[in-house]
């Protein structure tokens, strides 16, 4: 069974500061990894995903994430955040290959960007 741990439930930062949201996963097989964002009172939206190839993945809104297989991590980063980045961020994992298509989500990290 897979699991996802988002180590920080809340991350407050000031505008234009860099941010890193941490995600670790556990799985007995190879995985695909995703980051979704949920703005207040909205559904989730895909930020980026890692399937294979380069371990550094770039997504929308200036976010990027790095897959580290040895540390089973997929941390999300942005070099300079804006007020509009305030949202809940979810890391998710699914088995690669096979027929288990279920996405398992972490518990989310609330990013609050202050002026």
């Amino acid at each position, binding site marked *: 069974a897979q699991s996802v741990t988002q180590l920080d439930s809340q991350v407050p930062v000031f505008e234009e500061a860099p941010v890193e949201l941490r995600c670790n996963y556990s799985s007995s097989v190879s995985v*695909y990894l*995703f980051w979704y964002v*949920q703005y207040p*009172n*909205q*559904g*989730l*939206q*895909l930020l980026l*995903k890692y*399937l294979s190839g380069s371990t550094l993945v770039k997504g929308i809104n200036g976010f990027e994430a790095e897959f580290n297989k040895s540390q089973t991590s997929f941390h999300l980063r942005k070099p300079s955040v804006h007020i509009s980045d305030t949202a*809940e961020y*979810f890391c998710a994992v*699914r088995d*690669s*290959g*096979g*027929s288990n*298509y*279920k*996405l*398992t*989500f972490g*518990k*989310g990290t*609330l990013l609050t960007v202050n002026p």
Partner: protein
Amino acid sequence: DTAVSQTPKYLVTQMGNDKSIKCEQNLGHDTMYWYKQDSKKFLKIMFSYNNKELIINETVPNRFSPKSPDKAHLNLHINSLELGDSAVYFCASSQAPTASGLFDEQFFGPGTRLTVL
């Protein structure tokens, strides 16, 4: 045009009632999902249908019954509502999942906030 829509947006009801939430997608996707997000924002898959066939059925009370009349619709019916059913329910859709993961982006609806009194 809204890609994934849900109705109603808010639903307040008494314990013991039966209610339905409707979901429609106009993206031409083959696969649809229902998720439950609890008060701590934890998001958990409940069901998934691929081309009207149930492919994911998590451990959910049998008071919850999904119904997919066609590929574009996936409704959720809940019988005998309990206090613990209060949550935000999200519908999502995607292209049919494959082993390659290339088409795994799920598009989420705006959610239905269910409050059971």
